C-alpha cells in the first residue's frame, strides 16, 4: 500500500524524486516547488501534522545542506518524509514552512542555530539553543565537538572571572559505550585511549 502511494505521488508530481528509505515513503522535492508541494500534501492528502523538521550536512557534496520534513497524517496514521536541498551558497537558504504549520517555527530556529540555514519568510529567525552572538553553527561537520574558544556571553562575568568558552578536554573521547559484548565491560570509554589530560595527543610523526 505504501508503495502504491509513493508511485502515485511520483506520477502526479513530476518534480519529485524517490529517496532511499527503510520505512516510510520518502521523496526529494525541488526547493522552488517545496511550499506548493507541502501545501497540497497538507490540504489534499491529509498530512496535517509536521512531526519533525531537521537538516543534514553532507560536508563535501553540493549542495551541502538538505532539510528534511517528516509529515504525519492524524487520520490515516502514516508518514511521509520530504527532503529538499538548500541553495548552494553561504549562508544556505530555503523557504520557511511556518505559513503552513506554525509549529515549524522553533524547529527552523533550531536548524538555523545548529546548521546556519536561513529560512526565508520565517517570522523571527534567531538562535534558540546557543546564545545571541555566538559565531558558529555547532552541528556542521567542520565544527569540532570540543568547541572553539570564544568570549563568554556575559561580558561582566567574563571580566570578573577571566573565563572564556574554551574547547572541552576530549582526552581520547568522544566517550561512548562499546557496542556488543558483556554489560559489565560496557562502561563508556574514549575511542582513543593513547592520550589524556596528562599525556599529549600523538601527532603521528
Amino acid at each position, binding site marked *: 500500500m505504501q508503495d502504491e502511494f509513493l508511485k502515485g505521488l511520483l506520477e502526479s508530481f513530476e518534480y519529485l524524486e524517490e529517496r532511499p528509505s527503510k520505512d516510510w515513503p520518502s521523496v526529494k522535492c525541488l526547493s522552488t516547488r517545496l511550499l506548493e508541494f507541502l501545501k497540497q500534501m497538507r490540504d489534499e492528502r491529509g498530512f496535517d501534522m509536521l512531526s519533525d523538521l531537521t537538516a543534514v550536512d553532507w560536508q563535501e557534496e553540493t549542495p551541502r545542506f538538505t532539510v528534511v520534513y517528516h509529515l504525519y497524517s492524524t487520520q490515516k496514521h502514516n508518514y511521509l518524509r520530504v527532503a529538499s536541498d538548500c541553495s548552494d551558497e553561504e549562508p544556505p537558504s530555503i523557504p520557511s514552512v511556518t505559513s503552513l504549520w506554525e509549529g515549524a517555527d522553533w524547529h527552523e530556529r533550531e536548524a538555523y542555530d545548529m546548521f546556519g540555514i536561513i529560512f526565508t519568510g520565517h517570522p523571527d529567525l534567531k538562535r534558540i539553543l546557543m546564545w545571541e552572538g555566538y559565531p558558529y553553527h555547532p552541528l556542521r561537520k567542520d565544527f569540532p*565537538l570540543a*568547541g572553539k574558544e570564544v568570549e*563568554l556571553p*556575559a561580558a561582566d562575568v567574563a571580566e570578573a*572571572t577571566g573565563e572564556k568558552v574554551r574547547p*572541552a*578536554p576530549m582526552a581520547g*573521547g*568522544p566517550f561512548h559505550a562499546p557496542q556488543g559484548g558483556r554489560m559489565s565491560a560496557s562502561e563508556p570509554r574514549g575511542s582513543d585511549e593513547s592520550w589524556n589530560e596528562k599525556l599529549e595527543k600523538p601527532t603521528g610523526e
Partner: protein
Amino acid sequence: MSDANTLYNYDSKVEGDLIVSRFDAVVNWVRQHSVWPMPMGLACCAIELMAAGGSRFDISRFGMEVMRFSPRQSDCMIVAGTVTYKMAEVVRRIHDQMAAPKWVIAMGACASTGGMYRSYSVLQGVDRIVPVDVYISGCPPRPEALLDGLMKLQQKIGREKSAKKLFSA
C-alpha cells in the same frame, strides 16, 4: 571587710548561668546548624536533591532543610546539574546576589567537572566561575552522598576564622 569579689564588683550568683567560649566557636556553631540551601537545580541531579528533601532521607535532621528559591534568603548554593555556557552567567549572577557568608556545593559530575558532557556547550566545572567549597561525586549522587557533602560543609564552616573575617572587613 572586703574580699576579692566585692573589690572587683563580681556577682558570684551568675556562676552557672555563664558559658565561656571562643567567638569563632559560637558563630560557627550557629552558622553550621542553620544552613539555608539555594537549590540551583539544572538537570537530573536536582531530582536527587528533591529526594534528599523528602521524608525518606530527611535533610532537616542536620539543620539545613530550609530551601529558599531566592538568593537573598539563602547562604549555600547547591549547583545540581549540567551548567551550560549560556546558563553560567545566571549561576554567577545568582551567586553574586547571595549575602555573605555564602558557600557553594558542586553536586555531581557535571557541576564538578562537566562530567560526560565533553562538549562545546557545557562549562567544564562550575568552579571556573564561582568558588566551590564541597564537590560531590556521582552521576547523579545518591541523596546520602548529598547529605554527607552537606555535613562535610558543616565541618568546614566549623573550622572557619569567622571573627577575623567579620572584624577585618
